């Protein structure tokens, strides 16, 4: 520990201070000049976007949304780009692994120098990466990851385009509450992560918003679709007015296949894991999928003409993949990105992206997407306000056509 030499420093201080000040001044001039220079990933002719998704591995079926997004970006390029700039796409496979996702984000930012990131299907991985996303400050717009924790607490540059899991649960609770006859509710969910976390959120929402309804039972289903008869029988024993079931397509098919013949005929409500028309096709019978309501994040039914453009685009780029709501959902986030980039005009900076995103309403097939100026205490500032509807088989049709309803009275009207 050297306590010496203060006197010497004091004598030379003035000279040193002047030099330091001059350097700082020069540096700030240079910095100010370079601040006008473009952000990373932007040139006169291009904007670089990093797309990440679980393209392989067990969650790969959700990467179709990212495929849809890339198809849209390609289409935008074919039609002249955005304000004269072509979208340059860099993609990477995260395999739904948290460590890989973080490494990919670092690569996009520090090596590929992307302007923004479009992607995110795996909630846990994104939640884990939040501190990193926040640190980098790069605009990150998710595609179909649903967990409420992604935007709670919100991060300024992380835009969560989705009707989140808690918003879906609230929608279910409101739907149940809008049915005056729903006094007894039964819950059932597969014992995997999605089933259990979803049903817990729904339970909370019901207890808050649907107080006239009593939750009489909460059963577990096997995620592999093993015989659900005991669970069904316990559900029927409480004579529920409405049953809320969370299961992925396969176990849901098994549930419906067994539930209806065994006498569970009341309305069944589920999350956005599967659609009634999809179930009717799998079951080979319309009857088994009737009175089955699934959360649906779009304003028009799945087969509506307003979705045809996207359907064609997807089929052109990815002829071997099935067209379903996972793929359709990718269009929402991609449309958002494209509209915000357009609205920025020639001022293509990350900061301007965030500001423009906060103040621009984008029309989409999920309704108007509107974020608001960032408030660290308000998760809604980083959510676009998508109000999920419900998809149900059209009671007046004979095939697998669906309609979109929002409340029990909508449904009663549709049945007349």
């Amino acid at each position, binding site marked *: 520990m050297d306590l010496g030499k203060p006197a010497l420093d004091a004598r030379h201080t003035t000279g040193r201070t002047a030099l330091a000040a001059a350097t700082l001044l020069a540096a700030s001039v240079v910095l100010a000049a370079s601040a006008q220079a473009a952000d990373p990933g932007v040139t006169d002719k291009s904007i670089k976007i990093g797309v990440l998704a679980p*393209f392989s591995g067990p969650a790969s079926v959700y990467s179709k949304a990212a495929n849809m997004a890339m198809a849209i970006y390609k289409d935008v390029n074919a039609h002249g780009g955005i304000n004269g700039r072509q979208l340059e796409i860099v993609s990477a496979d995260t395999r739904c692994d948290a460590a890989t996702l973080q490494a*990919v984000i670092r690569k996009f930012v520090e090596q590929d120098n992307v302007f923004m990131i479009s992607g995110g299907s795996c909630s846990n991985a994104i939640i884990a990466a939040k501190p990193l996303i926040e640190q980098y400050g790069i605009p990150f717009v998710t595609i179909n990851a649903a967990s409420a924790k992604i935007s709670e607490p919100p991060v300024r540059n992380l835009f969560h385009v989705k009707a989140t899991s808690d918003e879906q649960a609230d929608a279910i609770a409101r739907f149940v509450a809008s049915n005056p006859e729903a006094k007894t509710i039964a819950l059932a969910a597969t014992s995997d992560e999605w089933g259990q976390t979803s049903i817990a959120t729904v339970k909370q929402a019901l207890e808050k918003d649907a107080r006239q309804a009593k939750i009489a039972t909460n059963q577990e289903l096997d995620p592999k679709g093993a015989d659900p008869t005991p669970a069904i029988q316990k559900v029927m024993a409480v004579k529920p007015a409405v049953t809320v079931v969370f299961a992925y397509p396969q176990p849901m098919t098994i549930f419906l296949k067994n539930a209806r013949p065994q006498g569970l005929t009341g309305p069944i409500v589920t999350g956005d894991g599967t659609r009634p028309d999809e179930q009717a096709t799998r079951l080979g019978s319309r009857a088994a999928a009737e009175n089955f309501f699934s959360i649906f994040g779009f304003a028009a039914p799945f087969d509506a003409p307003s979705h045809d453009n996207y359907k064609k685009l997807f089929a052109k780029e990815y002829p071997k993949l099935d067209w379903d709501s996972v793929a359709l959902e990718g269009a929402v986030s991609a449309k958002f990105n494209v509209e915000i980039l357009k609205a920025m005009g020639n001022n293509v900076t990350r900061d301007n992206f965030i500001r423009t995103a906060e103040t621009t309403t984008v029309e989409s097939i999920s309704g108007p997407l509107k974020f608001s100026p960032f408030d660290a205490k308000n998760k809604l500032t980083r959510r676009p306000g998508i109000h999920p509807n419900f998809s149900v088989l059209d009671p007046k049709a004979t095939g697998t056509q669906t309609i979109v309803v929002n409340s029990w009275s909508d449904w009663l009207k549709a049945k007349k």
Partner: protein
Amino acid sequence: MSALRRGSVAVPVALLIVAIALPFLLNGYHVFIFSMAFAYIIAAVGFDMALGRAGLLAFTGSAFFGLGAFVAGRLATLGVPTELTLLAAIAAGAVLGFLYGAVTVRLQAYYFAITGIVLMLLLNFFYRNAEAITGGYSGFSIPAPSFLLAGGGTLRSATAMYFVGLCLAVPAFIVARLIGRSRVGRSWRVAREAPAVAEGLGINVWRARLLAVVLSSAYLALGGAWFGYLSLRFLPESFMFEQLLLLFLMLIIGGLRSVTGSALGAVILIWFNQYLAEFVGVSDIIYGISLLACVLLFSRGIYGTLSNRFRGFRESLL
């Protein structure tokens, strides 16, 4: 003889100099990947003690790797300084390794392997369900490391994390080397190749194997603890079959029973995984073909085969 000795010090020293210089030459992404490699170097050189040297079909890699991340991460959320969380992780690995090994080490090869898988599944079951302690499916956030010795400030920069990782990996590497060459290491070799002879030589095979399990578990836990700090969050899903496979591959590709080989395997696999992420859609195919080619061409791992060739070449020069 002295020429060979000199040669054997020059290379590690040169590598160390390169390692110290790297963060100043590469971008943040590369530095982070190397940081990850350090965590895995620690895990791999330890795992090799059980899998390679003692010849046990230890399927315990990801179980203890995850345990380390859990223990260190949980304590970190309670404000415990990082020196202590890392020590706690090592202790947890050693203790659970002892309890597990004491019961299972006597089992024959493939049976022992199954117990490793069961341990991994049981720990995962615990992490997913004991929500109050573990955060359930989505785990918990692990705060940035803060060392008492460094004044308690939190480390956030990629370079700082890199150097801490290096400071953990180098001693771990050296100790593993020393263990490998010690009497313990030799007893593992005899117990692996000729258990009957081992008993005849007075080596208690059961005890030697148990020690291998305990040491490898402690190493894996330390590697996992640092992995946790680098990953920013503890997630139960991160410590299942994919993680186990990665650890296996590091040893196989790098070279079993070689500390340098395991370390080399760690670096190669981490980089290879990253490289694969760019091959959207075909990464599995490339992964499989590369692995097959490696296994067909390098029968003793990359390091093993190369060092054989190199040794022959060096000897021909003398």
